[in-house]
């Protein structure tokens, strides 16, 4: 369980969002929605531990993440970022195996259980057949799956993803979201991702976090729709939300 308590995020001396309160539960897929510039990436980077909180705290099972060592963090949170690691000469298996880094010894050699974890991770996301393909020869969708496999090999209870569906075509978007949902439900992982795909998030996510200038609102799509939060969230430029059918339309 991850809890945000009166969290303020930002970088340098600039505060981007403040007084954020919400929580993430194991076994659930949560999507973070918000307009550009509202602080989605900053919040995600703060959750990843890349940026220190400017105020308040983030607790994982009661422990403030500032108290976790680098090693403990690397065994707790796995990330998939927007930056594409462009490593020539690295194949799918080697990339997945990078997830084992927090567990390997001084030289980073893989032991039996590491190899087993890598194999299992590749099977879980369905890329075992691409094992020896070089990562840079893969399509965007396949590449995203490899990065997800890397976090699975990392065996962290929490997986955070920054816009994992951003560069994908529609079928790949759906496939990736379904995969993440399955991983959350079947493996009990806490999966949290930021996205701009509003309708897909509403249909597939277990919980939504709506980040706007007014603050952060969280809940299931039904709850947020019932209390009018979703409607308010998108009510600009003539876009309306049909709560019954969970779709947006132009008025």
């Amino acid at each position: 369980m991850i809890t945000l308590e009166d969290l303020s995020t930002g970088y340098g001396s600039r505060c981007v969002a403040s007084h954020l309160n919400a929580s993430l539960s194991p076994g659930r897929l949560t999507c973070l929605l918000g307009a550009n510039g509202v602080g989605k990436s900053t919040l995600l980077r703060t959750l990843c531990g890349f940026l220190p909180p400017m105020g308040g705290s983030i607790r994982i099972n009661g422990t403030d993440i500032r108290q976790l060592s680098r090693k403990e963090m690397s065994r707790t949170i796995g990330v998939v970022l927007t930056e594409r690691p462009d490593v020539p000469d690295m194949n799918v298996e080697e990339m997945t195996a990078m997830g084992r880094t927090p567990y390997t010894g001084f030289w980073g050699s893989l032991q039996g259980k590491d190899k087993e974890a890598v194999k299992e991770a590749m099977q879980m996301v369905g890329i075992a057949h691409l094992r020896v393909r070089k990562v840079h020869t893969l399509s965007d969708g396949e590449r995203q799956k490899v990065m997800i496999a890397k976090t699975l090999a990392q065996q962290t209870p929490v997986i955070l993803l920054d816009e994992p569906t951003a560069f994908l075509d529609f079928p790949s978007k759906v496939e990736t979201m379904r995969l993440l949902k399955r991983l959350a439900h079947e493996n009990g992982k806490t999966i949290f991702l930021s996205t701009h795909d509003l309708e897909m998030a509403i249909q597939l996510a277990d919980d939504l976090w709506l980040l706007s200038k007014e603050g952060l609102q969280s809940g299931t799509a039904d709850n947020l729709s019932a209390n009018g939060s979703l409607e308010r969230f998108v009510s600009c430029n003539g876009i309306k939300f049909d709560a019954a059918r969970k779709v947006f339309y132009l008025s």
Partner: protein
Amino acid sequence: MKKLILFILMLATVALCAANLWWGSLDIPAKAVWKILCGEDIPEHPSWKFIILENRIPQMVTALCCGAALSTSGLLLQTAFRNPLAGPSILGIDSGANLGVALAMLYLGGSVTLGGLSLDGYLLVIAAAMAGALGIMGLLLLISGLLRSPVMLLITGVIISYVTGALISLLNFSATEEGVHSYIMWGMGNFSGISLDRLPVYVLLCAIGLMTSILLIKPLDTLLLGDNYAANLGTSIRLTRNALLCCTGLLTATTTAFCGPISFLGLAVPHIARMVMRTGNHRILMPATMLTGGCLALLCNLCSTLPPNGSLIPINVITPLIGAPVILYVILHTRKQQA
């Protein structure tokens, strides 16, 4: 397969070491070389023993260490900056050494007295190159603490190179003809400047740099994915980057101080190693880079003795012949990949 290639590289290194002892401006039969190495005398040619022990062995060891050191620092920088065209010269470390040497040769006139310590000739050049390179490295360490982005650090290195280049031009402009000549000669690079008694210091400094680089293998692998992924996998980015700068600084300063600014090896060899090994894994790539670098430097040293009249071709005339095609290949290959 990769282990087999590493083994072949090792054999090639040994063969090239042997060739460097046997081949030279003066023909010495292989049998006589072997006898001298076993400690025997050749009574009819007493000078042969001197040539092998005092000239060819130091030259061979110098080339081997220099090749391994420069190539390794090139590999470290290419990984740290995720830039295939990064090399020891791009951060301005060797231009710092150049400036130090230019100051010593052109401004101080080749000798200096500090308190009771008097430095001149060769020793002054080494001290000046070390001071220049380590000074720039210190500056980079300081700046890397302030700048988070590796690209900014790379740009800082390029700017440093321009500034030192301008200062060197100024020094050249106002220096004596003799000073300019000796500075130009130093700048051409050579492996024959280290005598047997100075060799241990050089080898020790290279060994420290190479050993420390080997200790960085695991964090280097994670850096391939980018700073954020590396941090998420538990790597301390600042510690690794500083350790890496110290390593490259030491290796570049040592080789530049003792052999002059050797061009292209640091930039080209890691690419050759990648082409041969087809992996990004530093556990394989680093030893392969060290061996390939050693082999190429030994080969360059052999080529430098080709003129029949006994004179040596400067090393920096030979290294671009190997380096330039490799860099062209890398640029074309990268373009093809992006397309």
